[in-house]
């Protein structure tokens, strides 16, 4: 049996080229998916799982494009020069690239955390997105960035640092135009503002799979309520739960086979008989 192929590609956007990896099925292509990464250390921690997911989907007959946003991973630019507004343009460029490889192939997006919030936004503004898969989406950008600031403080506490940050000081600094370091990533005022205003309230007309990945057997209340709200606005969204630690925060290998298998099956069911 032939195996899918993997090829490094460049994705043109504005005056630069994003680093991408294209997974091409060995069989007839049932659909194409662009992966939308999380950011900060979550991107690195989730890398292996996203690669495994891309391979699983390619084996099932889907063309997959993974890529790095500007200023992230192997793509050019400094992290603090960009933010969600630019990264949404990058997602659009990745979709355009995928269309070049199969103009008539149905398209979808798969995102994790901030990547999921941006995927949902992209599904509303980009034409022809038939489905989105949202792994543990960020539902409230302000809450997300506040939680990241808390993570910084918890880390400093565990390291028993005497000189510790406070959220008020960090935010006051940002409002004064200063950046601060978060796990090696400079947080500039514009990034703080853009992340804070990232709230996935609009969605495309396609189908949406929301996956709650946590210790819970049932979806968390905010996520379940959000899906009800989406469906109340005429969208077609379902929520699944996968009991698994937050692999996007963990160092080392995570066996996410259940998450990948359920995602692959859901997409296959949606697209195999379209």
């Amino acid at each position, binding site marked *: 049996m032939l195996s899918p192929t993997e090829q490094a590609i460049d994705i043109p956007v504005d005056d630069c080229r994003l680093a991408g990896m294209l997974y091409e099925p060995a069989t007839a292509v049932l659909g194409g998916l662009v992966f939308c990464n999380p950011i900060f250390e979550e991107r690195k921690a989730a890398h292996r799982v996203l690669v495994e997911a891309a391979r699983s989907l390619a084996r099932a007959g889907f063309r997959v494009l993974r890529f790095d946003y500007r200023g992230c991973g192997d793509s050019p630019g400094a992290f603090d020069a960009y933010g969600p507004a630019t990264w949404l343009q990058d997602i659009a460029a990745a979709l355009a690239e995928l269309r070049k490889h199969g103009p008539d192939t149905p398209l979808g997006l798969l995102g994790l955390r901030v990547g999921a919030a941006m995927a949902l936004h992209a599904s509303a503004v980009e034409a022809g997105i038939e489905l989105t898969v949202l792994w543990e989406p960020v539902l409230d950008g302000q809450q997300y960035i506040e*939680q990241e600031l*808390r*993570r910084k*403080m*918890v*880390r*400093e*506490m*565990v*390291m*028993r640092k005497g000189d*510790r940050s*406070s*959220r*008020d000081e960090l935010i006051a600094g940002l409002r004064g135009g200063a950046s601060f370091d978060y796990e090696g990533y400079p947080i500039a005022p514009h990034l703080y503002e853009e992340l804070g205003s990232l709230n996935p309230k609009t969605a495309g007309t396609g189908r949406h799979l929301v996956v709650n990945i946590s*210790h819970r057997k049932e979806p968390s209340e905010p996520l379940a309520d959000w899906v009800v709200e989406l469906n109340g606005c005429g969208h077609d969204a379902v929520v699944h739960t996968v009991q698994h*630690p*937050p692999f996007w*925060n*963990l160092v080392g290998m995570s066996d996410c086979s259940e998450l990948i298998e359920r995602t692959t099956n859901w997409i296959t069911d949606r697209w195999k008989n379209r």
Partner: protein
Amino acid sequence: MTERIEDRLKRMIVERLFMSLSPDELDEEKSLLDEYGVDSVSLLELVVGIEEEFRIAVGDDDFDVDNFETVAKLANFVRLRLAGD
């Protein structure tokens, strides 16, 4: 009968951190950081868990190892917060 705060904490910690032991096996006096491998990532998960389980807010000033070192210290912290400290 009302479940002890210590027992609620132990159950929550084992569940949220996917620990491979039962809540009863978690020693209330042993360091979560040194004995049970709780790191900064797990600790934030635990902070969120405490806020959800006990419906209390953990403020920036509360990020002190003395509050989070052991289950017993956590229980003391939760008791103070529930009492309106």
